[in-house]
């Protein structure tokens, strides 16, 4: 059995002139939570749509659970589950009716359907409200049911497309726990999000995606570690002498520094130490600081560093 459950090579999707996905090549290992981190419109949902056989790639190949998504879509569909970004539920039906319906669509026989629906309802903590119409649920409950509907047929790979959008922190934690439990049970999960803290907490590996391309792919620890100790933005206006820049670069704890649009961007090895040194230098040279921003080392700053954009822009 191959170690990789998803493998793509040069995967591309074009809509007329627009290239939504520009030749993605990556692999997801069996049993891991793989994160797709990127802002809205980066190409995450389009990629998931191709991997789940909803749309055909314009170019490239994708093998999911051992089958080609174009040539053997039925085989792929049997082995995957999709939790779409939208609340893909029937609001006037109860949770049980929704799950019964989706279970039947996935071919579950009546004798296995009922216990499986009970099990899934229990898993997402909705057993007590199973008979209530979904429209009476809170946003978090709907999100949990949305996930439950994708689990009924025990897929080998689960695509979770922004599963926590519009969810309160408490429900978000509950969803994280469900996802981790599924991983512990051996399910492979492709988790798309534009919340860096979700990717950091859940994902073994993360592909940072922007404008249809994978910018970088590694474990969150490695990505953050490679990047360093954070970014410091210092507002200096146009009054800062140019000769200060080499002095900044030579300070202990500073990895790199550059001047851009009336501010200095400093990449730090250790942000706290670098900040103290910077303040000393600016005081000594009489340079005014008009603004100060310290960005902690995390995937958000990695993304910002790599793309020049914030995740939630």
């Amino acid at each position, binding site marked *: 059995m191959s170690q990789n459950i998803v493998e793509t090579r040069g995967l591309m999707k074009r809509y007329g002139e627009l290239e939504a996905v520009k030749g993605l090549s990556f692999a997801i290992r069996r049993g891991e939570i793989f994160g797709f981190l990127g802002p809205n419109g980066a190409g995450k949902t389009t990629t998931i749509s191709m991997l789940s056989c909803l749309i055909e790639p314009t170019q490239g190949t994708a093998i999911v659970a051992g089958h080609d998504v174009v040539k053997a879509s039925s085989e792929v*569909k049997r082995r995957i589950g999709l939790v779409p970004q939208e609340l893909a539920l029937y609001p006037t039906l109860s949770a049980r009716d929704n799950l019964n319906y989706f279970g039947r669509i996935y071919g579950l026989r009546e004798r296995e359907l009922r216990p499986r629906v009970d099990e899934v309802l229990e898993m997402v903590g909705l057993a007590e409200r199973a008979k209530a119409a979904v429209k009476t649920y809170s946003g978090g409950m709907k999100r949990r049911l949305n996930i439950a509907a994708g689990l009924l047929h025990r897929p080998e790979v689960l695509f979770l497309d922004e599963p926590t959008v519009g969810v309160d922190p408490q429900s978000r934690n509950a969803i994280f726990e469900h996802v981790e439990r599924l991983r512990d049970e051996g399910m492979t999960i492709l988790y798309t999000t534009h919340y860096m803290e979700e990717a950091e907490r859940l994902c073994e590996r993360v592909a940072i995606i922007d404008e249809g391309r994978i910018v970088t792919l590694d474990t969150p620890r490695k990505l953050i570690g490679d990047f360093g100790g954070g970014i410091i933005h210092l507002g200096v206006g146009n009054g800062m002498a140019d000769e200060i820049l080499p002095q900044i670069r030579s300070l202990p704890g500073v990895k790199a520094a550059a001047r851009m649009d009336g501010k200095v961007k400093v990449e730090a090895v250790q942000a706290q130490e670098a900040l103290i040194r910077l303040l000393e230098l600016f005081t000594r040279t009489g340079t005014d600081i008009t603004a100060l921003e310290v960005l902690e080392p995390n995937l958000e700053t990695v993304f910002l560093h790599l793309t020049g954009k914030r995740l939630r822009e």
Partner: protein
Amino acid sequence: MVRQLLSTTWKDLKILFTDTGGIATLFLMPMMFIIVMSTALQGLFDTGTDTQPRRLPVVDLDRGTYAAKVIAALDSIDGIEVETTWDGETLTRERAEALVAEGDRSVVVLFPIDFSEQIEARSEGDDATATVELITDPAVSTQFIAPIQGMVFGAAERVAETGVAQARIEAGLASVLAQLPGEMRPASDQIALETDGASVVALKQVAPAEMKIEVFPDTYQQNVPGYTVLGVFFIVGTMASSILGEKREGTFRRLLVAPLPKPVLLAGKVLPYCLVNLIQVALMFGVAHLLFGMAFGNPVALATVSLALAAAATGLGVLAAALGKSETQIDGLATLLTLTMSALGGCLMPTSAMPSFLQTLSRFTPHAWAMRGFQDVLVRGYGLAGILPEAGALLGFAAVFFLIGVWRFRFD
């Protein structure tokens, strides 16, 4: 405040006009309705004109003086053009019945072989009545037949009364004047004639022989099929909106990931609405039966037409869902299709009263076949064998609508 008001108006106009398809149907719908309805209803409300006369087929089996006079009187009416031949041959009873049965004409006037003879017998004092037959499609509503009845009866009665009165005057004068001395004989205008007051002419409405009509249908049997077919096709908008809703809310996306073929997914949407259609038909006919005593005819034939109709209506729903890209477009498209096709298909008025090009066009609507199917069962007394062509045509429409719908439907 005015600024906010104008901003809101401007924003909504921009949203509205971005949906070009939707806005087009909004304007297209009333225009189509005016054109189609006005043209179709021309036959019902117009008396006919010199340039566009109403054609009135006449079969003259009598070949006598009086029938000829009535035909001439009818032909002299403005806007009426009497047809005594069809395809170059003199009209016979059989041909006339076929014209009515096939829907080419909704009414044919027939003068029986003894029409003139009966009038002559009446003038000689016998208690005879000359009958004029109106061969009509029982499905054609009374409102449409009544003016023709009045026109034919009026013309026949005038001709007959004139003939009878003239004969009586001549006979009466001859016998009375013969008994009087010459100086006492009155001028002819001083003689008052008394008639017996009874009509000389009687109108008899008959259906073509192939239709097993013992009792002519009542107004409910004539009207209920039209409103039923019209109502059944309202499902088009509801169904198309539901499919669009599933796409919008993402449930379709989830279902498309399941291992089932796309046509099966759409077929699954069709079946519940088919059931709704059948309940609609049962409800409408049931109410007409319970409240007005409307007879059902052959139940198997009725169920077959109803099933085929439901298939055609829901097939059209799939097509509308495939063609409409927004709620506005679907609403407009469904209303446009439903009302235009209903008018064309004869739900609001008999197709036989429409101009001939619209009659031809009506055959391309499922409504016309459904109407014909229901009328075959309810008012023409046909059984299962009699409605198979209509049921077949409806199922054909259903298949075409569904296949084009599946082909054009954007699943992603």
